């Protein structure tokens, strides 16, 4: 007879997820097949019209735009995060826990507070301007806040720790003897990094990138605050459907497509990671 203990242990978590995640998600999914009544509310006639509207060029372009911003944030965060993780992993082992602690320290404060801090920094009468003025520069400064770049900066800043942690794990597990072997065989530092370290830690980068991408594409706080409401991402559009346009069915349809995209990416990322670790298992 199979050991049932895992099942019992898992059941509270499963019940929790079913009640508070699966069921609500199914309800939202169901909403997507109705349409908004004239005065808001929901008209319970089955229709594909609401879902079809998501693929209208206007909304598709907002999806695309969000994907570009999220992709950019993911890319920048991956480069900066990988470098930081590499540096931390190369430090003496006794310093590493503290450095990692500093990397996740910002998570101790509220997301909104962290985002507002950027407004204080970047606004026209803000800290950066004050410093530039203090240094004697009195020309016109380029606008920093309420731009697309400010949105990307905010996303990178907020999600960077995820990449650092995701990349640190494989980097710290890397057997230093493999790199030594490469050097002994005449590989330059760059070749060793490119042919050995990078491929072996690529799953970490993929995980970090997907994390940042998935969290960014659905984000609505950062574009609203740092973009000054001028850059609509898909999260803002969903928010607007539920809270201002009172078009719950359309909001539901948008959310479902967004969730589908995220699930596709997460599946792909799991697949990539699995394959990479499978390949490594065969090598050793």
């Amino acid at each position, binding site marked *: 007879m199979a050991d049932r203990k895992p099942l019992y242990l898992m059941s509270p978590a499963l019940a929790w997820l079913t009640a508070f995640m699966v069921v609500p998600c199914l309800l939202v999914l169901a909403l997507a097949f109705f349409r908004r009544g004239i*005065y*808001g509310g929901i008209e319970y006639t089955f229709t594909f019209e609401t879902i079809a509207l998501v693929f209208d060029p*206007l909304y598709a372009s907002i999806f695309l735009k969000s994907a570009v911003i999220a992709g950019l944030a993911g890319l920048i965060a991956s480069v900066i995060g990988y470098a930081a993780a590499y540096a931390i992993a190369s430090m003496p082992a006794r310093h590493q826990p503290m450095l990692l602690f500093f990397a996740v320290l910002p998570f101790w404060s509220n997301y909104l507070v962290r985002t507002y801090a950027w407004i204080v920094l970047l606004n026209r009468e803000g800290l950066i301007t004050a410093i530039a003025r203090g240094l004697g520069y009195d020309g016109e400064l380029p*606008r920093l806040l309420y731009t697309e770049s400010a949105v990307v900066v905010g996303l990178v800043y907020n999600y960077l720790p995820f990449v650092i942690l995701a990349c640190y794990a494989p980097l710290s597990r890397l057997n230093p003897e493999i790199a030594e072997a490469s050097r002994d065989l005449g590989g330059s530092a760059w070749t060793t990094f490119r042919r050995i370290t990078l491929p072996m830690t690529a799953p970490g980068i993929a995980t970090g990138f997907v994390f940042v991408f998935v969290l960014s594409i659905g984000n609505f706080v950062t574009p609203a605050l740092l973009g000054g409401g001028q850059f609509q991402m898909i999260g803002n*559009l969903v928010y607007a459907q*539920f809270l201002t346009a*009172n*078009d719950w069915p359309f909001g539901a349809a948008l959310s479902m497509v967004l969730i589908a995209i995220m699930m596709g990416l997460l599946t792909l990322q799991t697949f990539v990671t699995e394959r990479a670790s499978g390949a490594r298992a065969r090598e050793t």
Partner: protein
Amino acid sequence: MLKQTVAACALLGAAGAALMPSTAQAEALVISNWDGYMAPDAVDSFNSATDNEAELVLHATNEEIMGKLIASKGKGYDVVFVSSPFAEVLHNLGLAEELDHDKLPNLANLYPEAQELKHDPGNAFSVPYAWGTTGLCYRSDLVEGEPDSWMVLLDPSDDLSGKTTMLATDRWLLAAGQLAKGYSVNETDPAKMEEVRDLLIDAKKTLLAYDDTTFYAKLVSGEAELVQAWDGWCNYGIAENGDIKYVVPEEGSDLWVDTMVILKNAENKEAAYEFVNFMLDPKNHGWAAENILYKVPNKPAMEGLPDDLLATYPNMTMSPEELLEFEQLRDVGESQRAYSRIVSEIKAAN
């Protein structure tokens, strides 16, 4: 009943305590209002004056409370504060009580103009609580001359470009374009709305930001110099910086009206009437004018305002006749979808 509830709570412990508020809601008069939109002690003084147990809940936006009311068919609330187009929707959905004027003797305090508003002539289902205009709020020390047209905002001079904000809420964002084009703030003709959209997309390129909540702070800091604003909120800026001024552009404004609505499904109708009547008392209604700096449609309340307040905030002196020159935002029914889409197009434009 209360004893039973208490006993049940004791039995159920923490879980019961968490459910308690919803049990209480069914018994006490429930009023939903925006935060800070009436005297902090209004509900307490109502309770002690009338021996009621009213409870105040807050909503951040019209849309938020509308979502709840539509979902619950108006159950769980007795009196709600909403802007007039939403009061209209509640009426059209059959959720608003047909008001019995005999129970609201203080309606007599309203200006005659406030009793014949377009969305609800004769106050059949809504009682106006505050009203005003949407115009331009600006730093007179930084902006040259008086910005007398919506086009100063929508097509700003080079000096002003990048230093303006507009309201982000669909209807008011569109209203700026509709008024600038000389159209109704309830215009639904697709060709005309396309013109409005194009104008607002061009205007977007010159904006600092869309901002519904902190625009007056941006004016005070000098980050923005000219913003689209509700008159009452511009007054908050004026309170902090005397150089801030408010003007209604020559193309006009909308007339916004925030109202009190009693729900048809209210469980405490008598108390709900008492509350609305209590708020119409010149002393209580005057508090709103004096402290939140919004005009109220209550004649004795407005007449009781101190002169220095009116001198500091000149837009408080706007008469009901002047206000009535402007068109109210009305519910646009099916066209709301088109409005939402146009706003999405504007916000998605580069």
